[in-house]
């Protein structure tokens, strides 16, 4: 018996290729409190890569030395269903203590730090310095033909500054990725 498929037709795949998650995608900032033990970041990242979730930004550092706790801040994007899945998957990991969805919890302060190296002479150099002042970027290093600026702010501000520096001789930049906390007097 055959299902009357034309020879060579393989649209009738062994697996269901239809993506059932075609739904509205949104970015979420997740704050994850974990044990600061070896391999913990690999576990979290492995979950994201293994299950095909996005990571738009990731930062991690110890926040409580005596309690051996770190905070991982991940910006991810997905449909509401996928975001819920990510949180449930994170929550069942042994070294994960808390998963806070800052995007759902209310307003959060989100900051990035970036360092820009801008090469230029003459008017270009003056203009770079003037714009840095407008953005409240700090000069942290300089030579006769370059400035190195440090800038903190939300990601849009960093993006905007990078765009302005581009024609003014932006050589390279480094940025930390987002750290975030909930606004107000309560802990996240």
């Amino acid at each position, binding site marked *: 018996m055959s299902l009357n498929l034309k020879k060579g037709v393989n649209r009738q795949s062994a697996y269901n290729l239809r993506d059932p998650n075609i739904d509205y995608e949104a970015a979420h900032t997740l704050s994850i409190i974990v044990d600061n033990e070896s391999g913990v970041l*690999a576990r979290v990242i492995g979950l994201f890569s293994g299950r095909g979730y996005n990571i738009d930004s990731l930062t991690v550092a110890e926040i409580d030395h005596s309690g051996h706790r770190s905070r991982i801040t991940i910006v991810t994007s997905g449909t509401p269903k996928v975001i819920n899945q990510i949180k449930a998957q994170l929550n*069942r990991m*042994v070294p994960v203590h808390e998963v806070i969805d800052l995007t759902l919890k209310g307003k959060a302060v989100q900051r990035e730090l970036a360092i820009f190296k801008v090469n230029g002479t003459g008017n270009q150099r003056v203009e770079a310095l003037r714009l840095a002042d407008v953005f409240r970027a700090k000069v942290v290093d300089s030579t006769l033909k370059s400035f190195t600026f440090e800038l903190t702010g939300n990601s849009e501000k960093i993006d905007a500054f990078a765009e302005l520096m581009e024609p003014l001789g932006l050589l390279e930049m480094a940025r930390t990725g987002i750290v975030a906390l909930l606004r107000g007097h309560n802990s996240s």
Partner: protein
Amino acid sequence: MKSSKEKITGAEIVIKALIEQGVDTVFGYPGGAILPVYDELFQQKKIRHILVRHEQAATHAAEGYARSTGKIGVVFVTSGPGATNSVTGLTDALMDSVPIVVISGQVPTFMIGNDAFQEADTVGITRPCTKHNWLIKDTNKLAETIHRAFHVAKTGRPGPVLVDIPKDVQFASGCYTKKKKVSTDFFKPELSLDPNLLTETVQRLEKASKPIIYTGGGVINSGEKAVNLLRKLVSKTNFPITSTLMGLGSYPASGDNWLGMLGMHGTYEANMSMHDCDFMLCVGARFDDRITGRIDAFSPNSFKVHIDIDPSSVNKNVTVDVPLIGDVAIILEELIATWEKRGSKVSSQKLGQWWKEIGEWKNVKSLKYTNSSSVIKPQYAIQRLEEHTRGHDRYISTEVGQHQMWAAQFMGFEEPNRWMTSGGLGTMGYGFPASLGVQVAHPKSLVINVAGEASWLMNMQELGTAVQYRLPVKQFILNNERLGMVRQWQELLHGERYSHSWSDALPDFEKLAEAYGIKGIRCEDPVKLDDAIQAMLDYPGPVIFDCLVEKHENCFPMIPSGKAHNEMILGEQTQSDNISDEGAVLV
């Protein structure tokens, strides 16, 4: 955490911790990096060690042991290849929620990272296939970590864990920490039950006109209490009940409300009831793609309640209306209590109508097949096996393929923990070692592995283990000389191009049995089948039963991947009316 002052070696700590955890059996294979532990094993009498012939088999044997007893299965492997050989079993246990603890040897801490002999990044490799794993660098942490490992393996949704112990940590001395001194607070899945949701569920139960209960392995994992409560709920409501492959036996196959297994090769009545129901109570199952078929056409008109201990299983594949997160036994108990408190009743008139509809689907007789008097049909072989062993103190394991589905369709399971099969991962080579693990746990019981010849070859080296430990397992091989399930898909979905789905160069199974000093039986005549099965059952030791069956039989009914429940295809026998019922076996 206080520890006793007396110091013992890491290897002693391992054995002591296992004994304190109540471990009586370990499946394993030694090697350089775990020799100190094996040395301790040699000097004690409380733990029995079963030497397998391949580490993959140790993990599957531990799974069989765990699933048939409800206890935790334990495995010892050495570093490098020993550890990598355990990966398939770990993944299998993760998919099917089987609690096992693998203890692996590792190269000494000071050599880690140097590409030492038999070094592998075991915790790296097994990270995605365990619930959690640990590399221990301090002998003083060893006991505590092993106790934690056992806690994680069995808490919440059960699963595999691995503890990697470098050889110097096994040699060094350290303090033992007792189990009761180890806090389990570090891993406490949060389960909160909202009474409003319980009431809402019961209200829906009362109002349902076309209800169905769909159960899975979670009921069995939860334990005897959950099984009894499930049966109680069914008898109180008179709702129809179906189960996944993993959940067979939680409701008895002989029970009045049983519709048979659902899913890709489930019965017509089970799948149609799932499709047409207006209320679905999912108990300890996870809406796997083999169950749902096409997801956007899955049970379109039902109100869905999902009971599961794992929050990540809820709303993963199918969005449900009411999630009830927690242990199946606790939730069923609450549900029934709420039901009784409200004095709930179902409408027997509406339910009667629904049962009538289901009766019509049952009349399709979707498991019907054409029998033959000249060749053994695989379904017939399973039916005869069932006939000869029903009522025995019996455990069945399977390999993966058509034979597995036929076993699920044609064997009746009256009790939980009696059916061992690789569901989530679909691991060929699972059944033989699993049957060994079951037999070790239940030495007096009848243990049969229903196998396909191709799968069976994947762990056939375990004949040595069966013989060494006098494990009288029966290997009932449905030999179609084909990778039958692959062949079936090629026939139905790939234009009958049978690419590499032949089992060529098969051994003579009778001679193979003879080579190991056990019994081999071959049967190819349906008339002689009964006697041959009886001979297998009468033989006190291990048997390889080479049952030569029809080579081109397809397993029906079938929901092709990506199709909906109501698009299932039935066997030729059920499809066409012009074939007479003569020779057709009704089930």
